[in-house]
């Protein structure tokens, strides 16, 4: 797994967001996966959904692996390499487990919304009760199984909670079409649950966004 894909999770089981993302994507769509790692999701979308897929990935290893398996991936990152894409260039733009590692998440989100007709964002939820508990009990930056870094070596420089992200979506004027909150084992939290419940008990969340 590439740097960008593995920043959050240490076990494959934790990439349970990929199934949710795949379910959101319609067959034959033009898709850009930003932070695509070695292209696992793109390969899956091309095989299952027959999409016209492109990727952007920061790590050289991830890009080389992805291109060597026949995927169209460029080396670059969300902060610098989205500006040149035209408006509505893609049906879906995906940012999976990468938002928290960008320098300017708001700018990145606005770029995603501009170049994609729909945008899918998944991220680890920093509002999870275990994170809160660690901070409250020990008064130190939380380190969990899924977020194993120290504060000084983490690539995750812009953590947010489910509620934080919802607020950002409102601020940039996008519409939330669907939200899926996930437990660590991939089970979905009930759709009727309140945002506050999701914010406390989901390990990660996947948002399907569209322009206003």
């Amino acid at each position, binding site marked *: 797994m590439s740097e960008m894909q593995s920043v959050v999770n240490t076990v494959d089981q934790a990439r349970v967001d990929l199934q949710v993302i795949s379910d959101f994507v319609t067959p034959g769509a033009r898709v850009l996966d930003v932070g695509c790692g070695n292209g696992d999701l793109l390969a899956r979308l091309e095989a299952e959904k027959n999409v016209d897929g492109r990727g952007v990935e920061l790590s050289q290893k991830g890009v*080389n692996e992805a291109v060597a398996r026949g995927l169209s991936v*460029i*080396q670059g990152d969300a902060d610098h390499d989205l500006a040149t894409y035209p408006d509505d260039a893609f049906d879906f733009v995906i940012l999976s487990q990468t938002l928290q590692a960008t320098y300017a998440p708001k700018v990145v989100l606005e770029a995603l919304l501009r170049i994609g007709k729909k945008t899918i964002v998944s991220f680890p939820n920093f509002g999870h009760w275990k994170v809160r508990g660690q901070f409250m009990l020990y008064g130190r930056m939380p380190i969990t199984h899924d977020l194993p870094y120290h504060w000084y070596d983490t690539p995750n420089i812009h953590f947010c909670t489910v509620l934080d992200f919802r607020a950002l979506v409102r601020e940039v004027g996008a519409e939330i079409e669907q939200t899926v909150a996930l437990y660590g084992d991939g089970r979905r939290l009930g759709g009727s649950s309140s945002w506050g419940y999701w914010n406390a008990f989901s390990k990660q969340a996947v948002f399907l966004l569209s322009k206003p």
Partner: protein
Amino acid sequence: MPGAKLGLIEEQARTEAQAPTSALAMFGPETPLRLDSGVSLAPFQIAYQTYGTLNADKTNAILVCHALTGDQHAASANPVTGKPGWWSMMVGPGRPIDTDRFFVICSNVLGGCMGTTGPATTDPNTGEVYGLELPVITIGDMVRAQAMLVDHLGVDVLLAVVGGSMGGMQVLQWAASYPERVLSAVPIATGPRHSAQNIAFHEVGRQAIMADPDWCGGKYIAQGTSPRKGLAVARMAAHITYLSEEALHNKFGRELQDRSALTFGFDADFQIESYLRYQGMTFVDRFDANSYLYMTRAMDYFDLAAQHGGTLANAFRNTKTRFCVVSFTSDWLFPTSENRTIVHALNAAAANVSFVEIETDRGHDAFLLDMPEMFATVRGFLNASARRRGL
């Protein structure tokens, strides 16, 4: 008569320029080549090599474009030097450009000196060696000539066009000029235009050649001589730009050449001096000095954005071609930023593009060397292209 007698390899090179051992495509007065300079060139000839077999549907052809001092012998022994083909690690049976599957075409560019019409060939209209009477050639001219060769070989659509450096410029020109004839393009270690710094280095080389008395105003072939010293200096200066500071340091450092102390003179005390002198001397045996002027000029004039109203993305508007751009971290002649300019323009044109930057200390020359990551990238990209083509 000025200058020294020609060496055996030099004689061989001059023969090869006139009457190559490669296959030759002849284009007569009825099919003139309209050059960017406004002049029509006719008749002219293209020397080329092919590897592998063209399939019945003619869908498996790949064009390989050579760099400044390359030639058509990508995967065959060079008839002048006897050395293996310059890209024999990339092109061949089981190689990334697999000649068991693909039909590979590689031609000597227009203005070259390995049998395609160039300054060292005889102008059939006058019976004299062209020299500087040959019109200035551009990358666009080279590509138009190649397109005529591809027609001549009965191929309509190329599965891929692949090349590094000046070859990469030709790849970009192909994709811009003939988008419907290029399914996949692999420009390696190249740029959408030649930078001021690169033009500057080329000018140093040209001035070195033209300052050599044996250049004889470009008519050295008729004089039976060669501007060896000038061309060697040009090659030495250029060769530095193909390497990297790090690689030079690692390979040579300040090591002395066959001596234990400085000689307090101007002989080649340092290994790097000796190495560069050797590079210069071996180059002049095989390469025509005027051809070097034409090749460098063609690169200098290359500016794909300028051909398209100043916007590079316009060169690729609505293209269906798949691109795979490759750069090398230590290449300062065509740095990653230049290659990335191509990628961004392709993004802006919503083109299908892959881009790989490969970590190496080998500088610009890396594209000619054993680079497993480059090979894996090209292999994977071409395999995907072949799958889409139903091969």
